[in-house]
């Protein structure tokens, strides 16, 4: 469970608050996709949930540890460590004074389940992999970290379409199977429609659309795009009016 109650956030030097009283409550295992224009407050909301930023007011209640995958792959992995070391580091919740190589079979199985042949690099430093492959490993690490909350910030943006599809399918299936509460920011409207139990749209620091259940299932890319442009146009008009006023 994750609850964000009336969260506001401002940054010095920026007149308008980045978040203006955001409320969001996710049930255990719920998968929520977040869309919105650049600067709408999506990443700030995620950083407040992860604890990286402190809210000016409001409250965030988390039912467990938070794992995160961000666009910058170097933040989510250690390139100089081997793939085994990276995944073992994330997967071990109760460390012991015994060799981490005992996890090798488990780790190989997890990587093999991706079906992209990365298991042959298990004892190689992650730096030998491409950025996209490293992002896949970063996602696998976050999902298998035992955290009950997963935050994904455009985690497929650096990948080619084939890899994007593969990673999204892996992410959606894994979080459903493990019952991880997930918030995923994306600019890909197709992913926003296709994946997740719930969709929210942010605009100017507020949640302006929140849909789930049948409403979300019936959503099409076309209708989502129309909604997106409608809110963008409204905010442009409002800004223009405010400026004129």
């Amino acid at each position, binding site marked *: 469970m994750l609850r964000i109650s009336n969260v506001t956030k401002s940054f010095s030097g920026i007149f308008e608050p980045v978040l203006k009283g955001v409320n969001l409550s996710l049930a255990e295992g719920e998968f929520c996709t977040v869309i919105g224009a650049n600067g709408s407050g999506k990443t700030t909301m995620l950083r407040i949930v*992860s604890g990286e930023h402190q809210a000016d007011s409001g409250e965030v209640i988390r039912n467990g*540890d*938070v*794992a*995160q995958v961000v666009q910058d792959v*170097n*933040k*989510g*992995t*250690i390139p*100089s*460590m081997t793939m085994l*070391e990276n995944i*073992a*580091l*994330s997967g*071990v919740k109760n*460390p*012991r*004074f*015994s*060799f*981490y*190589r005992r996890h090798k079979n488990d780790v190989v199985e997890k990587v093999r389940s991706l079906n992209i042949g990365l298991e042959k690099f298990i004892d190689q*430093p992650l730096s030998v992999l491409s950025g996209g492959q490293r992002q896949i490993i970063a996602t696998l690490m976050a999902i298998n*970290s035992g955290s009950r909350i997963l935050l994904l910030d455009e985690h497929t943006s650096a990948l080619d379409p084939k890899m994007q599809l593969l990673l999204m399918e892996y992410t959606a299936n894994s979080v459903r199977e493990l019952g991880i509460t997930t918030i995923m920011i994306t600019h890909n409207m197709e992913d926003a429609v296709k994946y997740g139990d719930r969709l929210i749209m942010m605009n100017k620091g507020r949640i302006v659309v929140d849909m789930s259940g049948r409403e979300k299932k019936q959503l099409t890319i076309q209708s989502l795009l129309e909604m997106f442009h409608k809110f963008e146009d409204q905010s442009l008009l409002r800004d223009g009016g405010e400026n004129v006023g």
Partner: protein
Amino acid sequence: MSVDLVMNGLQQGLILAIITYGIMIPFRFLDFTDLTADGAYPLGGAVCAIFMSSGIHPALAIPCCMICSGCMGVCVALIHLKLRINSMLAGIILSTMAYSVNLRLMGRPNIALFECGGLFGVNILGNMTIICLLLASCVVPFAIFLRTDFGLRFRAVGLNQNLAKQRGISIDKYTIAGLFVACSLFGLAGSLIVQLQSYMDVGIGVGILIHGLASLMIGEAIIGNATLNRQLVAPLLGALVYQQVQGAALSLGLAPSDLKFFTGAIVLLVIAMKRTEAKMFG
């Protein structure tokens, strides 16, 4: 170069290797710029000199020296972590304070221990065996530790602190433990050098950091630091080579007073070579 000079160089190189491991641990595993060597090394020597002059067995003095110097490392870590003082500055402050502590402990600037005996004799090979055993008793458990779950976490602290925090790893605990281990190695080296020379001078630590750093640079320039094994061999190899280079330079006529300039020049040369190599080969 005579055989004696080479053997003496190897003997000194083994002790320098202990210091170099102490320098490598915070630098390479914790991303912590630690300058405590100049204070923790003579502290180990001072404690050893007092113990030996009081008639305590030199073998018993060694763990006490390691604990005293290790505690100094803990103080540096706490000053950095709790008072938010830059790690380099914390090391410099504590090293400066240690100078007075050493003088106070010794009661005078130097102590001759020729009558007190020690672990070492006139047989260089025997001495080297003792140093090798002590070195191995520290490095082998550390190498095993690095391959455990806790060791993996220890390495992660220096390589990606944000990720380590996300995974619930306590940066403070690992930094404190790492500094304790590193500084206890300085204490061990200090006690060994005092027993080897049968003499302790309050100024033995001046410039020791740069000798260790030069050794680490040379070791990493020779075999690199891409893998854990290479990282663990580099300090030993570097210290042995550095000590031989220094011996060769002295036998070729370099004045002992120019030694520190020579060491600094080696460090700069190795850094420049690494940068040039990185530029040329990406």
